[in-house]
């Protein structure tokens, strides 16, 4: 298939189907995130990139031999590895019985949070989440470094979609609700599927929707470069400082029980702050990434290769 537009749309559908599969396998939080991130943001960025490159692939597969060899070898290795695996869906496996059982039994007692995925993410394995936040932060930095120079914007102002009346009216009604939903997901993530990442992505998508319809200048007037930069930094520092406060009180980094009189209240407070930090940074980074992608303009042939 040479038409990259079709390829990208199909990959988006693949992510969405994967998200549905995750739901059938009882992974609600994961499905939520995969749908938002994989089917949403990823497809969006791919399409934005496609707008700046050629729509069709020039040649077919160029090294099928090497690829087939690698694939067959890897596939054989994987198949060999499955021969000892526990069958799909079995209840008592080492993976389910060893440490995971602890989380399920003690989540409410230790942290007060019924959504075990959130309690693991934000408290038990909170350090991994800090790492994850840094990953998205780094990606934001990378996009700013690579696309932040404004060398190629043209002077002609894009009409955006001013003439699509229905879109404009409906979106103006929807955007506040999308943002409200983002806040709901952020703060309700302890009791239902959701949390900082999903909330950040939803909030960013509201701003991105606005930007697509009303032009990036409008979005930039609220989310300027300096604003997104400071917000991204604030989220990371909020997360880290929550951990540092625990250190200053003599306990380990990210030990939330140090944050309040009662350890469980401390946990709840810590999880709240940490997820908020995540939400802020993720939203800021994704908004900035989209705006940077949006700013590039198609370069006509004669200007290529000159920068």
């Amino acid at each position, binding site marked *: 298939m040479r038409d990259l537009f079709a390829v990208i749309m199909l990959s988006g559908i693949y992510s969405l189907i994967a998200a549905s599969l995750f739901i059938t396998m009882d992974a609600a939080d994961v499905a939520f995130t995969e749908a938002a991130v994989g089917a949403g943001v990823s497809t969006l960025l791919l399409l934005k990139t496609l707008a700046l490159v050629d729509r069709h692939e020039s040649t077919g597969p160029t090294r099928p031999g090497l690829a087939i060899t690698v694939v067959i070898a890897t596939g054989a*290795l*994987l198949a*060999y*590895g*499955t*021969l*000892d*695996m*526990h069958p799909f869906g079995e209840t008592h*496996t*080492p*993976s*389910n*019985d*060893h*440490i*995971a059982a*602890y*989380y399920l039994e003690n989540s409410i007692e230790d942290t007060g949070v019924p959504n075990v995925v959130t309690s693991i993410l934000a*408290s*038990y*394995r*909170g*350090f*991994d989440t800090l*790492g*994850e936040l*840094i*990953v998205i*932060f*780094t*990606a934001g*930095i*990378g996009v*700013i*470094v*690579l696309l*932040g*120079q404004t060398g190629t914007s043209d002077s002609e102002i894009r009409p955006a979609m001013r003439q699509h009346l229905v879109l404009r009216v409906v979106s103006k009604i929807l955007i506040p609700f999308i943002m409200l939903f983002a806040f709901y997901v952020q703060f309700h993530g302890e009791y239902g599927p959701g949390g900082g990442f999903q909330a950040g992505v939803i909030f960013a998508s509201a701003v991105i929707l606005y930007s697509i319809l009303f032009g990036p200048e409008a979005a930039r007037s609220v989310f300027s470069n300096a604003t997104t*930069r*400071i917000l*991204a*930094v604030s989220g*990371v*520092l909020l997360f*880290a400082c929550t951990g540092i406060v*625990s*250190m200053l009180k*003599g*306990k*380990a*980094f*990210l*030990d*939330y*029980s*140090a944050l309040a009189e009662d350890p469980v209240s401390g946990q709840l407070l810590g999880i709240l702050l940490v997820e908020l930090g995540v939400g802020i940074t993720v939203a800021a980074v994704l908004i900035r990434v989209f705006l940077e992608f949006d700013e590039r303009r198609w370069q006509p042939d004669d200007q290529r290769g000159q920068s």
Partner: protein
Amino acid sequence: MLQLPILQVLLPLLAAPVCLAFNKEALAWLIAIAAAIGATITSVMLLVMVMQGGPISYHMGGWPALIGIEYRIDVLSAWLLVIVSTLGAVMLVPARACAIREIEPSQRVYFFVTYLLCLAALLGIISSGDLFNIFVFLEISALSSYILIAMGKDRMALVASIRYLVLGTIGATFILIGIGLLYSKTGTLNIKDLSLQLREVEGSRTVLTAFCFLAIGTMLKLALFPLHVWLPNAYTYAPSIVSAFLAATATKTALYLLIRLCYSVFGETLQDGVLPLEEVLLALGILGIFAGSLMAAAQTNLKRMFAYSSVAQIGFMVLGLGLASAAGLTATLIHIFNHALMKGALFLALAGLVYRIGDVRLSDMAGLGRAMPLTFAAIVIGGLSLIGVPLTAGFISKWYLVQATLEQDMWWLTVVILLGSLLTGLYIFRVIEAAWFRDSGTKQVSEAPLIILLPTWLLVGANIYFGLDASLSISVSEAAAMYLMGTSP
């Protein structure tokens, strides 16, 4: 409570967003140096503590080791921490000067931010006792490396970066698959617990498959032949200070991960001998030595030459690992330290060259030995250390490696090592010949600036010092090897 074991990661990790908040180039540089020096001091203190008192544990979030994430510093980790943090700090001193020459003004603050993130990530990989945590930090280091490489002023830097990105992501995904398969059989992610759980699981095929995936992913990051293809371009087109930093630290961290996997996680399983691991490592190591050295000798661009040289040196290190003995492991660990010093010095000297003449092609070197004596003297001494000439640190590594091969009566490996060293001499000599034995053009070039020369000579001096008195590297490496072999009887 002892907060020391996480400071070496937290300091650079948090300094990065702080630098970004201020958005001022000079301030970012100072904050970066302060954070790196803090990390170095922490690492040294940790090494002292671990050498005296045994491994140190730190439990993130206050949760016990299996429930939460554990940082576990033993002799091996502490040694690597000292190496990576010291070089990370030393490289920052000339970094601003080099950045002014080679990086766009608007990108310079981001350079320091990304550098700090990469340093923090590498230190995090070394400190962590949780396999998935290692994966996350591996990705942080990978992403920041891609960005640092892409900052090179040549447009080929972008291509080098995306190629590294594609290969690196495949490698990271393989590691993720390995972790998943391992988890399905053991139910844990903690390294110490994994080695315990794996004893219960009998030579399972899933576990062996998991090891293969983890190993292949790690070997890709390590640039072990034949998965080294991303390295020459990456080191050539990246800004010189980035090449220096990555050459001295990034591949060492991947090697640390491989050692950790082989000994601390899979130690027992691999004893069964089902996998011909030692043979594979020896074979790939030998191929790496020869392929790397021969390709290096054929290059006309000095950065690319030393990049291939790194592939060869990694071959030597993996050779030591493949011997599967305490002596071999000791030799590898000593060489990790020495190679960091050597390549650090060499690439910094190249940074000095780029500062003055803009490029490092062999044809441009004609007669420069007279115009830039200190820089070229540094290259010569670094080169002699690479070859393994006595009185340099490189000699110590080669000596221990030879002893390890002799101990197992593998004479042919000794010959391989000597041949490899001779080949190294080949390309070093080409540089010397160009620099001194050719007539220079009419170019008037001055010596590299002091801010680049001083760190270069600091590392060169360290090469000589640790060539004369290697008691530090030897004692630590031996202790680490003993400890690791002790965990897998």
